[in-house]
């Protein structure tokens, strides 16, 4: 059972899946790092993005890898609008209210998808879905390789944006010291919304990378978002490198526990890690403090 012929591909596949998780988790950790709330609507937005990717393939004939350039800006706008015109005004600046508002949005989006498209599971057919490349000792699926590379490209872009642009500096300033940033002339409401938009755009990119080999239904985002919560908690809330490393780790753990325990119990393994981390070290492996 423990032969390297099974183990090594499982680990590699785990790393590749982990990269997609990283994208979902990046959005979540970014929003947490700046707004200091957990966005419970993240999973529902992922489901919505998967539907958008599905329909841009079915109706417009857009390959998901092309559609990403349309959907990422679109979801940025959706995220920006949600935060600026709904979450911000509705929560009156109270954290507990903000949690409830994102939960409310999640429930609305998820069930609107259920209402519109029913619970059917849909998939798309792209020619490269099952193509693999031989890396010597094992075969790797091409869509997953693309996802892996893209995830790191997005992380790098985000890092560049945060480090070298004015918007990035403003975001970091708001994250560190909201009042001080406001006094320095930064429009905090706008920066909150930009951050939320960026987080939502990450979800759209993740959706486009997932759809070639995955399926979509109204509840599909839930599974991912709980994994993403785990990653974000594991890596330290708000930490971008933490999210990346946490995601790869969780991908490998899921792949291995799926191998030894079976699919549905493999997920429990992740939740148990999640709960254990929350209880023992809520600041995460890389976070400074809770």
């Amino acid at each position, binding site marked *: 059972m423990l032969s390297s012929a099974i183990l090594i591909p499982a680990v590699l596949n785990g790393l590749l899946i982990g990269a997609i998780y990283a994208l979902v988790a990046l959005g979540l950790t970014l929003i*947490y790092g700046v707004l*200091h*709330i*957990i966005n*419970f609507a993240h999973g529902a937005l992922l489901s919505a993005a998967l539907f958008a990717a599905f329909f841009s393939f079915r109706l417009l004939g857009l390959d998901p890898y092309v559609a990403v350039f349309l959907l990422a800006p679109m979801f940025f706008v959706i995220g920006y609008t949600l935060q600026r015109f*709904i979450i911000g*005004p*509705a*929560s*009156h*600046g*109270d*954290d*507990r*209210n903000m*949690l*409830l*508002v994102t*939960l*409310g*949005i*999640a*429930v*609305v989006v*998820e*069930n*609107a*998808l*259920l*209402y519109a498209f*029913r*619970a059917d599971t849909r998939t798309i057919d792209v020619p490269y879905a099952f193509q693999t490349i031989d890396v010597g000792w094992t075969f790797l699926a091409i869509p997953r390789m693309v996802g892996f590379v893209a995830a790191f490209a997005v992380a790098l872009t985000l890092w560049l944006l945060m480090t070298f642009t004015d918007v990035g500096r403003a975001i970091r300033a708001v994250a560190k010291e909201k009042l001080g940033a406001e006094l320095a002339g930064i429009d905090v409401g706008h920066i909150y919304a930009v951050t939320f938009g960026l987080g939502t755009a990450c979800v759209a990119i993740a959706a486009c990378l997932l759809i070639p080999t995955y399926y979509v239904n*109204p509840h599909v985002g839930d599974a991912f978002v*709980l994994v993403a*919560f785990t990653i974000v*908690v594991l890596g330290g809330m708000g930490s971008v490198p933490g999210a990346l490393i946490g995601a790869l780790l969780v991908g490998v753990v899921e792949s291995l526990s799926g191998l030894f325990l079976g699919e*549905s*119990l493999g*997920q*429990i393994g992740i*939740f*148990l890690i*999640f*709960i254990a981390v*929350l*209880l*023992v070290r*809520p600041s995460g492996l890389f976070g400074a403090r*809770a």
Partner: protein
Amino acid sequence: MKSLIPIAVVLAILAAVPFVVHSNVMLNFLVVALMIALAGQGWNILGGYGGQYSFGHAVFFGTGAYVTAILQMRYGINAWVGFAAGVAAAAALGAALGALTFRSGLRGSYFALVTLAFAEVLRIIASVAPITGAGVGTLIKLDLGIRTFQFQSRAAFYWVILALVGVSLVTAQLIERSRFGVWLVAVRENEDAAKALGVDANKVKLAAMVISAAITAAAGCFYAQYFLFVDSGIAYGTWISVQALLTPIIGGVGTVFGPLLGALIVKSLGEGAKLVAGDAPGLDLIIYGAVLVLVIWFAPRGLIGGLAHARRLLTRHDVPATPSTQEARRG
């Protein structure tokens, strides 16, 4: 004792309903609304008075429902004993969960997240474990009689759930009036300040969690007896977690009658939507989610809280600061 008079009046009025309303559809509607009110009152003790927002109260609802159903069907235990055991099991689970989470200092977002995750873990376990009937669920055999806690008439079920709601209302009222209730509110308003004044915040939250779990579990036990079926999606699904927090938030968070009022509104909206648009999956939850956002936006204290606040403003007494007013002033 004087403070219990409004509860007695409301219960008396509600108890008379089956004498006037004979429609089974209407009674069924009220039974479900009262069941949700009961689950919501459980959430309200911990979330409303204690400020600990749980996003996974299904943990307690589902545990109550499963324990009741499994004890009867697999071990042949009397339904009433099963009911009590369900409540006790959920209370014990609440104590364990509370001890774990509060001791590691989880608050706010983290608490919401960990409760959500616990509900999800239990849902997955219940959907594969043989004892819960895995994906098939657990059916309770139809066997009418007082001994089996199964009644032919809806009215009997109605009075049972009304009695349970009555107990929960009295509990909330007694807590509100007690020293424990004051500690709980102090922890909600400012945990660090409460601690500095000598309140054992963790113990207070833990006690609130146990009471909260027991009340919400009673709703779950009742669900099992009323519908005679439990599966993992029903027991540990988001529908009940959302409704448990939605009802007190709409009616008035941290108020005695908030959950009851909220449940009647929520259920009326859900049924109204079904009348207008047909019984489509997800429709009621779309409305619940939208109402949740709108209530927080325009009436963050809920209906009762908003009215009480307006009255205090009108009579020009000093208005005590609640979290939302503090935040509004600050930001």
